[in-house]
């Protein structure tokens, strides 16, 4: 149900005085007023399905604003190896049926994807590698995750900050370069390098949340180097709240991932300049629409701006809140599914009348000045 937020949001001329619930059309009208009156509005959060992302980008364009995603830091970290160097990628299906070596890298992977062990059939040999067993290695994993994976794991503990150097050392040894290390550490690193080189088709599994950007680049480099003599690829689990799906929609609707602005009317991408949090904290942006239909995550900024929120919970920190349906639960959707690694149709598991993000945004757009509606 759309309702006015209960919190003590900054008083604005446009805000209704009563705290009573307002109907969705009034909420959309108010949102349109706030966004169109702004010098630079941001459409942030963007936790939405593909239809919601398309609509959000169009709204950003129509208001000469900016779009950004709540997990953009991870999106940028995943894109970095692609933009600077070479990246090898594969799918959960291929990891399941073909990988005779699964290399898990980092902590938090099971939290991100609780079904990961079952989905990749870690306990079974790879179905399309006749006669070959499966070797599983985990670098820097949570102890409980490693133990609970359901398969025999060769685990090497490492703190998050040590992951980059560790992967770098394995990479050096895999390419036959010397490293400085104690004898026992060197033996361990050499044996890992040999394991990876001996794989017929290895898959490194990680995420931008599990590793720092530099470690993620090292991992991309290790995977690339291994392809000099064998086959190795990687599977990144992707940012939360459909970050990968929103990125794909950005690529065809605007040509760019999140952190893109339409200040000049044309799309411009700049990961620093169009960071929603920075824009609001610095005062450059003066209104925001915050979207998280997958959850109820609050915006990451502390400065008060005229704010409209659109989440699947009761978040109240802005002038107006509309409760949106959850993609794949309340309504059918398309999203980047973690179990397929591709844009995937998902039928509603508990269909309800809760409005879709794209439908809400369309109503907001209908109230923008100059709209024919």
């Amino acid at each position, binding site marked *: 149900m759309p309702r006015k937020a209960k919190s003590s949001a900054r008083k604005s001329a446009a805000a209704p005085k009563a705290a009573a619930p307002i109907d969705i059309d009034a909420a959309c009208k108010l949102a349109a007023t706030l966004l169109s009156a702004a010098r630079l509005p941001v459409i942030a959060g963007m936790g939405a399905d593909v239809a919601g992302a398309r609509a959000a980008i169009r709204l950003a364009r129509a208001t000469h604003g900016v779009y950004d995603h709540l997990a953009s830091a991870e999106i940028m970290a995943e894109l970095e190896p692609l933009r600077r160097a070479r990246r090898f990628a594969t799918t959960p299906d291929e990891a399941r049926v073909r990988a005779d070596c699964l290399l898990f890298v980092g902590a938090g992977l099971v939290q991100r994807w609780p079904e990961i062990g079952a989905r990749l059939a870690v306990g079974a040999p790879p179905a399309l590698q006749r006669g070959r067993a499966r070797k599983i290695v985990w670098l820097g994993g949570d102890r409980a995750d490693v133990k609970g994976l359901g398969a025999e794991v060769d685990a090497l503990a490492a703190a998050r900050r040590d992951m980059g150097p560790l992967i770098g050392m394995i990479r050096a040894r895999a390419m036959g370069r010397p490293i400085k290390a104690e004898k026992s550490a060197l033996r361990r690193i050499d044996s890992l390098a040999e394991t990876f080189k001996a794989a017929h088709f290895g898959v490194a599994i990680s995420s931008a949340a599990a590793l720092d950007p530099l470690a993620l680049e090292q991992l991309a480099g290790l995977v690339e180097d291994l392809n000099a003599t064998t086959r190795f690829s990687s599977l990144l689990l992707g940012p939360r709240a459909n970050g990968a799906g929103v990125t794909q929609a950005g690529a065809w609707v605007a040509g*760019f991932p999140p952190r893109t602005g339409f200040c000049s009317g044309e799309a411009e991408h700049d990961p620093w300049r169009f960071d929603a949090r920075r824009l609001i904290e610095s005062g450059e942006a003066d209104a925001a629409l915050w979207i998280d239909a997958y959850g109820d995550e609050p915006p990451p900024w502390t400065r008060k701006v005229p704010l409209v929120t659109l989440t699947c919970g009761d978040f109240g920190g802005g002038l107006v809140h509309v409760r949106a349906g959850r993609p794949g639960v309340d309504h059918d959707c398309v999203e980047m599914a973690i179990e397929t690694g591709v*844009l995937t149709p998902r039928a509603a598991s508990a269909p309800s009348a809760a409005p879709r993000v794209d439908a809400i945004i369309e109503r907001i757009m209908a109230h923008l000045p100059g709209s024919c509606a």
Partner: protein
Amino acid sequence: MIVRISGGHVVDPLSGRNETGDVWIEDGKIVAPPQGQSADAEYDARNCLVMAGAIDIHSHIAGANVATARLMLPEAHAAYMARPAQTQLAAAGWTAEETGRRYARMGFTTVVEPAVSPHLALHAHLELSDIPIIDKAVLAVLGNDDYLLSALRKGEGATAVADYVALTLQATRALGVKCINAGGAMAFKENVRAFSLDDVVPQYGLTSRQIMEALQDAAVKLKLAHPLHLHMNNLGLPGNVETAIATIDAARGLPLHLAHLQFYAYGKEGGRAFSSAAAQLAEKVNASPHVTVDIGQVMFSDTVTISLDVLRQFTGLKTARPRKGFIYDGDINSAGVVPYSYKRSDFFNAVQWACGLELFLLIDDPWRVFFTTDHPNGAPFTVYPEIFALLTSRDRRAEWLASLPKGVAETTTLGSIRREYTFEELAIMTRAAPAKLLGMRDRGSLAAGATADVAVYGLHKDRAKMFAAARYLFKDGALVVRNGEIVHAPYGRTFRATPGFDRAIERRLDRYYTSLYGLKRDLFSVPDFALPRPQAFGEVPCLA
């Protein structure tokens, strides 16, 4: 609403018109001049060329790999890095919306995205549905998938393969089937680094030739209007003309379309062991009436190569310009995205440029040669007007040839070719023939009853200027371009073929997905609810 386009030079090979006259439109269709009725709107086409809307049979305009290319190369566009004011990829638009608008500006009304991997079909259709103005179609790619290869290994018959192909077309909403380096991507997963027509896919014991034959037979059996669309082995390698000639023979006289033939027209003569073998290949095509080809013309530009030929793309990482790239081992097909810059000063690139033009000019029958750059692999589609100019002017070609590195002219026959394409031949190659090749019988013509996709170009002696911006373009009878500007941007349709098949294959494939992948097959489908305009599909009939 009756529209009259009056007094233009009408060129319509299908109805035999090549004359000054009128074209009439009513309710989205071309009609005969109405008796005793006047037009509600009239467009002056004096000093203009009037043809059907153009059709591009092979252009990578949508889907996951196109997205990867965009995400990989933000510097090609208005973004955060230092960049030239206007890059060639920026000129191609680089969004779904601009793709449609820029094609329309050049008088194109139908474009085929030729490389959709079945599990990425939804992605492609989502993007296609956001491309305005033009009509679209996709080809589904098979030939590196475990299901097919296992069926062939087990010796399952032609009917089983045809059922699988038909179901794939249904699931992916495709117009036809394509095969890319048959078996090559599967072999690459087994660490094979070179793969030719008679090489064997490890674990399956099948050659590329056998896989290609099976898919070619399936297309024939299903009576698909569009024959198997083949991306051959050994793309880009010196001496690969041998592969192309062997593949044409392997077609056994059955219909076969060879994609971007230019990339297979290479000999290994000369000091650099790289030469044009286009004349030899054109002769082979001329003698093989069962074969159609598109060219994949190279033009000098900074571009990006997008291909499911992962083996080739992996090799291409070494020569990437700039040095980056993406290699994808996918479920049913693999892929690679590698940026590349074709330089006029580069001997190899210059030979490639010449090879493409030689093929265009030495293949006699304009009904069997199609106009493509394999966008963006040979060059972005926005360079088409310049290629039209080169095809219609030997003087222009001579100027270009003179600007190329030493030794290039000697390795090709281009300088000796006097042929210049006529408007009629252009109309066949870019309108009438593609409509026939795709089975889209409603278009490619200005005969009464045809879909009213009509392009009007102001005559100009500089053909590049003339074809860069249509004076008028009508899509389904509605004016969408005037003086090179978009005036209306409706959404077109996506065309698919729906051959019949034995539904038992559905249950079989359902079981295959659950047992191998542990997933339901419909996670990879393209349901109506997933598309913003689900009703926007049209059908291409199968052959009688």
